[in-house]
């Protein structure tokens, strides 16, 4: 008699067999790209106007915030505006991953109840969508940078490792929140307040070096504080990021990613009976 192709046994807490899981995931990478494509098409990314809106929306937002800073602070300059736009765009990569990720599992109910596949594909796809939305804004940020006459240098190549860290962070957050939302459905309604607070606590409306050290010492618990600070140094000031900043961002990104993935993988077989 032939060997069983698959065996299903009682759910044990803990990770599934990782090699098989990764093989299945790789096998279904087509799903992720197809999902992202349909999702973007649905968000009118396909039309010129849809793409324009994608860029226009954060641009208008940064305009509004610029106005706010100007009115409250009394002064403002080109660097300030450059900082505001670049960091806001990167922030939106993370925030969009969170908003896409939070409902990834709960809205995939139909698929989850009827097909067996690595569930992590759903939050992964949400992050891919967020990345596709981020790319055009990155181009805009660079154009603004040039128009404002801000400096360029080779140090700006640091943007690549920082982006990588940002993507790991986004993945970790999306995976974690999609899983938590299965158990506590009200997380999705709290999320807007969460991202808002994160926005105000991060060096976007202000620059990291401008805040007093008494406040800054608490910023160590903000997972994206130094990520955005490093991004601003590289993309706005064309300087190298600080070692401390990079270390902080890396540790946070990988910690969230590992905790989120562990939490998700050890529970995903339980999702079908909880939806």
């Amino acid at each position, binding site marked *: 008699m*032939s060997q069983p192709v698959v065996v*299903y046994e009682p759910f044990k807490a803990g990770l599934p067999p990782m090699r098989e899981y990764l093989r299945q995931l790789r096998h279904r990478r087509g799903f992720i790209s197809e999902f992202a494509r349909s999702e973007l098409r649905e968000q009118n990314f396909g039309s010129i106007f849809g793409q324009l809106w994608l860029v226009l929306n954060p641009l208008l937002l940064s305009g509004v915030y610029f106005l706010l800073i100007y009115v409250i602070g009394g002064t403002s300059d080109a660097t300030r505006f450059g900082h505001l736009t670049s960091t806001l765009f990167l922030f939106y990569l993370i925030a969009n991953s969170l908003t896409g990720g939070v409902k990834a599992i709960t809205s995939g109910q139909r698929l989850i109840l009827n097909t067996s596949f690595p569930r992590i594909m759903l939050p992964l796809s949400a992050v891919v969508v967020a990345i596709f939305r981020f790319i055009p804004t990155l181009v805009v940020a660079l154009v603004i940078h040039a128009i404002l006459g801000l400096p360029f240098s080779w140090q700006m190549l640091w943007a690549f490792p920082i982006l990588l860290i940002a993507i790991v962070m986004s993945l970790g957050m999306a995976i974690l929140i999609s899983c938590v939302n299965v158990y506590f459905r009200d997380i999705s309604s709290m999320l807007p307040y969460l991202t808002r607070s994160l926005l105000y606590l991060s060096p976007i409306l202000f620059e990291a070096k401008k805040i007093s050290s008494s406040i800054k010492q608490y910023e160590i618990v903000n997972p994206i504080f130094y990520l955005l600070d490093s991004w601003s140094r590289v993309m706005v000031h064309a300087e190298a990021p600080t070692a401390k900043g990079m270390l902080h961002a890396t540790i946070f990104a990988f910690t969230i990613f590992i905790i989120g993935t562990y939490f998700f993988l050890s529970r995903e077989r339980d999702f079908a009976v909880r939806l």
Partner: protein
Amino acid sequence: MISLSDFNHEHSRGSIAVSVQDLGLTYTTSIEKKPTLKARLKSLGRGKKHTRTVKALNAITLDVHYGTVLGIIGSNGAGKSSLMRVISGIVPPTKGRVEVYGSVSTLLALGVGFNPAMTGRENVYLGGLAAGMSQSEIDEKFEAIADFSELGEAIDAPMRTYSSGMFARLAFSVAAIVEPDILIVDEALSTGDAKFKEKSLNRMKELRTADRALILVSHALATIEDLCNEVIWLNQGQLMARGKPADVIAEYQKFMNVRKSASSDEDV
């Protein structure tokens, strides 16, 4: 987890397709409609129990062989769908063991209609990809699926605009065209119109080949008797009887105290 495209083995009639051993399944659900953090915090101080368990399957042992068409009957809530979910690897069992020798596809299982905002076409692709088919395999079969469903232009309309019959048509078409080794149909035909019902019945008969196992869950006893060569009867998670269609159905009807009337026979 099985990918549809992973295994296209030859199976000979009589070789085992699915082996279910002493299977038990218990659902744990929250008492509240939706589990929320707020509700959890509220019940924290009082030590109130916030979950409830449902024993959906109990000590089921069952073998399905290739070449068989197995019918599953039983009243509402008997555990039929639950058994199908365990066999297709969607829900892990609480107890026991299930061995599957081949690729499984459940009807509706390709997750068709997973995102109502997307078109029928996109949903077929996404469902197929999630089930582990490759892009080219779906490309190859898409025409046949669209043809079989007879949806015409509606295939490119968002699925939220579909009637429930259209939904069922597309779902059945996907399952019937994909040709898995083990096909599970869980009463998804009931909303199709008479013509489509007959068409899908004929398709099922075509699919009844020696190298495939069909598992059909239905309340339409006449269809079961017509299509299947073996029937099991589930009641409250227990396996009550197994054997020739006519015998098991008779036993079930005696138990349920329904006569063979028109109302129980009408639907697939």
